[in-house]
């Protein structure tokens, strides 16, 4: 398996494409140049750092360091989930629900694939565990973020409908069901759309990376299919848990709607 190695010097010329975007922003008064510069700098630093971190982790093959890296990834994912919410759950649930559901869903699916499909030695080998977790985490995070956003906004918007149902003797699960369905649909849609478009509209990054690194396309496709199945499972599991958990938190044991447990809108 051979691949064309790149030096940092090889990246200078392509980097001018980003500079070109900055120049366009200035010329067209888009006011994006500052954001673009910060995003580019962040991307560069984060990727270089993660390269060194992964090199260390792959050399160490330690369950402790692998688990620590996984926890840090989950924490960043939960931070992203919260950042995407227009309205947030209050208290420890702000970060807690997203983090718990992400960890449960992405962790379960990653461990499942390591133990049943890939069989690395040891089973937690960071070369397999962390990239897998990262890809599943990214999609699970998007599903959970969208699902919770639609749930909280839907409950605020449909408060009269939900309470009318409750007032007539519906349980909290019956009353919340229409909003929960909308939230689950929103959480699942990006994954379904991604699966439908893959190969026709876009070649996925992992598969492209493997092909560039010299893997046969047919083998790269198998890996990509595995990843897509895992992503679908992780997103479904995580979104379901987060939306049901959110619905549970936003009602109480007397089947009352508890919108007082949502913080006010962002930006206010």
């Amino acid at each position, binding site marked *: 398996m051979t691949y064309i190695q790149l030096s940092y010097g090889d990246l200078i010329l392509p980097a001018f494409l980003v500079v070109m975007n900055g120049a366009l922003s200035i010329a067209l008064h888009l006011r994006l140049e500052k954001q673009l510069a910060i995003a580019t700098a962040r991307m560069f630093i984060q990727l270089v750092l993660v390269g060194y971190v992964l090199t260390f982790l792959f050399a160490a093959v330690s369950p402790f360091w692998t688990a620590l890296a996984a926890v840090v990834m989950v924490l960043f994912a939960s931070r992203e989930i919260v950042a995407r919410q227009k309205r947030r759950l209050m208290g420890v649930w702000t970060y807690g629900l997203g983090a718990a559901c992400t960890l449960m869903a992405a962790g379960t699916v990653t461990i499942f694939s390591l133990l049943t499909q890939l069989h690395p030695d040891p089973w937690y080998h960071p070369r397999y565990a962390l990239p897998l977790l990262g890809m599943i985490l990214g999609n699970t995070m998007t599903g959970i973020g969208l699902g919770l956003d639609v749930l909280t906004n839907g409950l605020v918007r*449909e408060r009269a409908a*939900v309470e*009318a149902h409750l*007032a*007539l*003797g519906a349980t909290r699960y019956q009353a919340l069901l*229409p909003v929960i369905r909308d939230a689950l649909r929103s959480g699942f849609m990006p994954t379904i759309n991604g699966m439908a478009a893959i190969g026709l509209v876009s070649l996925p990054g992992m598969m492209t990376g493997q092909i560039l690194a010299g893997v046969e396309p047919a083998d790269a496709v198998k890996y990509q299919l595995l990843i897509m199945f895992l992503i679908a499972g992780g997103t479904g599991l995580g979104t379901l848990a987060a939306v049901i958990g959110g619905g549970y938190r936003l009602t109480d044991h007397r*089947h009352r*709607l508890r919108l007082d447990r949502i913080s006010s809108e962002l930006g206010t």
Partner: protein
Amino acid sequence: MPYAASYAHPQSNRGLVVLTIEGLRRLHVSASFDVHSGECIALQGASGVGKSLLLRAIADLDVNEGILKLDGVLRESMPAPLWRKKVTYVAAEPGWWAETVQEHFPAWSEAIPLIEKLGLPVACGSWDIRRLSTGEKQRLGLVRALVLDSRVLLLDEPTSALDANSTKIVESMIADRASMGAGIIWSTHDKAQAQRVGSRLFIMSGGRIEELPP
């Protein structure tokens, strides 16, 4: 006003206590009173004084404190959905969770006689909720609650969007429910309506209620 005569009043003729409210508190609202079988308590008060808060708290739709009993049974000893089927709150602007009218009724056939009585066509079952007028929504919202055969009805401005004729029919229907033994609390801004429908008159101010002399 022939329909008003069917309420069980004056006070001396009240039925058994159906709903007991002791030390109910919700935000600035506090109340203690009994609702008897067959009576209609007309609740008046300025906008924002807390009439809806009181009715919602009795239905246990908001967090509240106090001892509430239905036919002597503590509220907390029965599941909240069962409590609300027996002590049913009807909002002034009822909410809708499905697309058609019929989907909001557990048994549409049971609703048909009431629907017809309120001057709506039976075919309205297939109507899209979005095409309903405010008055149609209010009448259907009331029917939706009446089919439950609740022990207590908590009516929050139930005729605020209705014309005089529909109002008269609603008052008559509620009077029938009271004559069958239900207890009614009817919140209204209309003093004349309060006099017509109420076997007892309560006025609310500053979050507290006071019973007016008959």
